[in-house]
């Protein structure tokens, strides 16, 4: 029987000890003597969050399909266990074998959001692996980062040996083979990293130097060894029908945040919203075939026992055979007594019919994400959703029996004016008014309920808004107050509820998102002074961070509210996502003019991602030429 690393007394003294025991259904155990490579995958947040992530499950199934590799998992210990481990000098261990992480060949850390950076340092330190890459020896695991934040890895570059840029399905085999050869021939860590840096998609930050201008912007990236690239191109899985997928997902014992099957129907998004990083990073758009998805759904329902299935993509309404897929899933899931959680779809007769079949109309709500209140601003952000479309959808839904509407907006978008903020309230009012006009008094069972939520916009790398100034904390607050005030002034204000989230964390997220290498020391200092679990409101310590910036003589405004020159070299320019900087520049200038760009399923806009030679929609136009 598997032995646990932690003692009974420790496990009984902490919250949710099942976070640390492994052994879940479909988790993989191998004999460590039978494998050449031990890889530990880490999601640097608590188990319930980490276990909800599809990417790790995909890579876990890929690595464990390799006979010579055993992939295991580790998550951030919760602060209660963190303290015990520090007090008793207990090293962090993996869930499957319960062996110390420091004994592994690789530690792969997924970078899903900027606010997990201090948790990375926690994982390294508790694992007793040197926090800085430069301090590691041949005895330490190779520390690899991947995922969305690896597209600007510079703020955490000093902590990682390698960043894998792009989708993990393509190059890991090559990297592992190189590792085996290097180990057999007794190559040093440095030699392995140098050779690895020649593999497509592999970025070794220690082999690149950064030169700065007097104004602290970047002057140039300099290779520190012969032949090291200063532009690393993202990797893309070109065939989603023939690749790894976790059809036997690990089933957590404790309830994960996403306690359901995730069926990934496509990657990429054709919409080109200018604020959206994922929309650019995951180009070109690629779909899975209908038959493949049907089979995957059946297998995953059989193999998991989950009660719910969820479709995943950036824009499900754009999946070409969505109707067929949903109709099939409704029938099959009904038979298997599995619930379908529908993605947010364009509201029309079909989606309302589907929603009516899978959920209780009285309890469910319809969701719109106009992101901006006015048409002017929606054009600037290229959110192709008009007020007419929203009202039309809402009317259909009201007639179908719905009376709850959720609306999502962003505040602090580039070129936003007070009138755009007030327009949020006016849009809510129009929807409320529409309800009372559409539904006769005697048929109204409840008051219409409209919930408007706002988040603060943070400019992200590789978007047309990467040049934009982020608004200040004070601006953010003023905008939220203005939203609230304008909603209160509406005739139907009692039907409108307004939610907004706190602002401090938005500032820090903005700094880290567009940060450079000089921030590694700030992150280190903040961590050493107690910053951890920054993504959790209860743990976020803004003052600790402010002190860390101050002590390192680094101005937050350099990263957030500063106006960036159109020709500035960005820290993330070392990465090539396929979409060209020229294209993003063009989009930024179009945004200033309020000019829209069409959905790229309708017309190729020449973003550059077509060079991957995949994604049939990107090529429709080119094939014709």
């Amino acid at each position, binding site marked *: 029987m598997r032995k646990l690393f932690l003692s009974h007394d420790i496990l009984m003294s902490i919250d949710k000890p099942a976070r640390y025991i492994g052994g879940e*259904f479909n988790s993989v155990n191998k004999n460590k003597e039978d494998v050449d490579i031990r890889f530990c995958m880490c999601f640097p947040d608590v188990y319930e969050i980490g276990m909800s992530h599809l990417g790790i499950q995909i890579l876990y199934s890929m690595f464990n399909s390799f006979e010579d590799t055993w992939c295991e998992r580790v998550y951030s210990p919760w602060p209660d266990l963190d303290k015990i481990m520090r007090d008793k000098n207990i090293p962090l261990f993996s869930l499957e074998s319960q062996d110390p992480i420091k004994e592994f060949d690789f530690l792969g850390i997924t970078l899903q959001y900027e606010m997990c950076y201090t948790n990375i340092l926690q994982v390294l330190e508790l694992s007793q692996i040197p926090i800085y890459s430069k301090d590691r020896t041949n005895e330490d695991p190779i520390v690899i980062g991947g995922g969305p934040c690896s597209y600007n890895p510079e703020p955490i570059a000093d902590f990682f040996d390698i960043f894998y840029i792009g989708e993990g399905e393509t190059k890991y085999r090559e990297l592992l083979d190189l590792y085996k050869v290097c180990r057999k021939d007794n190559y040093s860590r440095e030699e392995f990293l140098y050779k690895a840096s020649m593999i497509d998609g592999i970025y070794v930050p220690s082999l690149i130097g950064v030169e700065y201008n007097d104004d602290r912007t970047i002057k140039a990236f300099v290779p520190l060894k012969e032949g090291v690239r200063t532009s690393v191109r993202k990797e893309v899985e070109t065939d989603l029908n023939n690749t790894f997928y976790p059809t036997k997902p690990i089933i957590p014992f404790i309830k994960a945040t996403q306690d359901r099957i995730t069926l990934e129907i496509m990657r990429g998004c054709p919409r080109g919203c200018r604020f959206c990083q994922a929309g650019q990073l995951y180009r070109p758009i690629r779909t899975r075939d209908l038959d493949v998805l049907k089979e995957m759904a059946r297998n995953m329902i059989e193999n998991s*026992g989950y009660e719910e299935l969820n479709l995943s993509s950036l824009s499900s309404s754009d999946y070409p055979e969505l109707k067929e897929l949903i109709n099939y899933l409704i029938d099959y899931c009904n038979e298997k*007594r599995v619930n379908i959680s529908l993605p947010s779809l364009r509201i029309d007769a079909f989606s309302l019919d589907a929603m009516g079949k899978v959920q209780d109309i009285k309890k469910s709500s319809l969701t719109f994400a106009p992101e901006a209140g006015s048409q002017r601003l929606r054009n600037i952000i290229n959110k192709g959703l008009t007020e007419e479309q929203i009202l039309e959808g809402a009317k259909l839904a009201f007639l179908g029996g719905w009376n709850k509407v959720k609306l999502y907006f962003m505040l602090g978008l580039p070129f936003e004016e007070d009138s755009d903020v007030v327009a949020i309230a006016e849009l809510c009012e129009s929807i409320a008014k529409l309800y009372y006009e559409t539904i006769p008094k005697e048929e109204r069972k409840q008051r219409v309920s409209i919930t408007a939520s706002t988040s603060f916009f943070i400019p992200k790398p590789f978007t047309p808004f990467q040049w934009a100034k982020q608004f200040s904390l004070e601006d953010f607050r003023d905008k939220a107050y203005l939203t609230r005030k304008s909603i209160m002034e509406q005739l139907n204000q009692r039907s409108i509820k307004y939610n907004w989230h706190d602002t401090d964390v938005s500032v820090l997220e903005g700094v880290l998102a567009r940060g450079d290498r000089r921030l590694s020391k700030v992150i280190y200092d903040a961590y050493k002074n107690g910053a951890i679990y920054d993504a959790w409101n209860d743990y976020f310590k803004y003052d600790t961070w402010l002190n860390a910036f101050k002590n390192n003589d680094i101005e937050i405004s350099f990263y957030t509210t500063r106006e960036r020159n159109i020709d500035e070299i960005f820290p993330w320019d070392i990465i090539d996502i396929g979409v060209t900087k020229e294209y993003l520049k063009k989009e930024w200038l179009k945004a200033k003019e309020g000019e829209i760009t069409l959905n790229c399923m309708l017309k190729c806009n020449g973003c550059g991602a077509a060079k991957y030679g995949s994604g049939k929609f990107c090529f429709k136009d080119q094939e014709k030429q």
Partner: protein
Amino acid sequence: MILRFKFKKYGPVVYIGHLDVMRFFQKAIRRSNIDAAYTEGFSPHQKLSFAQPLSVGIETDGDYFDLEMNSLPDMNTLVKRMNEQCVEGIEIVCVTILNDDADNAMSSVKAADYLYYFDDLSTDKALIDSFFSQESFIFEYTRKEKTKTKDLMQDIYDHKISDDNTLTVKVNSSSAGNLKADVVIEALKQFGLKAECLKYKRTELYTTDDEGSFVPLMNLGEIYD
């Protein structure tokens, strides 16, 4: 038609709480593809009832759940089929086709056996026997910041010391007067027990028959293992 499953839980999975064990079996039942009965509506769920929650960290050889079925699977292979969907440390022991007149698992539980492992009982046997032979033992103890006072002898039905330094105690486990296993140890210590209790586990759950005798929950129908 109701099937009563008897299961064991041991090893690393003892750190999974009761609700999560329920969720585990709900999924295992789905994966096994047996024809369980479901409720109607938008989120159908199985008609599943557990006999008695078990505290986190404790092993069991004899816990139970009842599952309502639309039709019966092949009973001779059912235990194997279910165990294919289980993990190390969670194991179906046997299944009973419950008699029509049997109460559900939760309401019929009357008693539980706990097996305590000690380092060395050789000098404490007389003390243990005299503890359990008392007519009454009023004991005050604190759980979750609440102090309770109970006559333990009302809720202790039987005990047996074995040569391998173990002690089995049968206690009240009904919803009205469940006596927690660790309270017995605490009371024994106060009474003067020197031996160290290393661990304990639940070994069986009982209901009572018409004469009031204790009957293991699995014995209320035809048993398959």
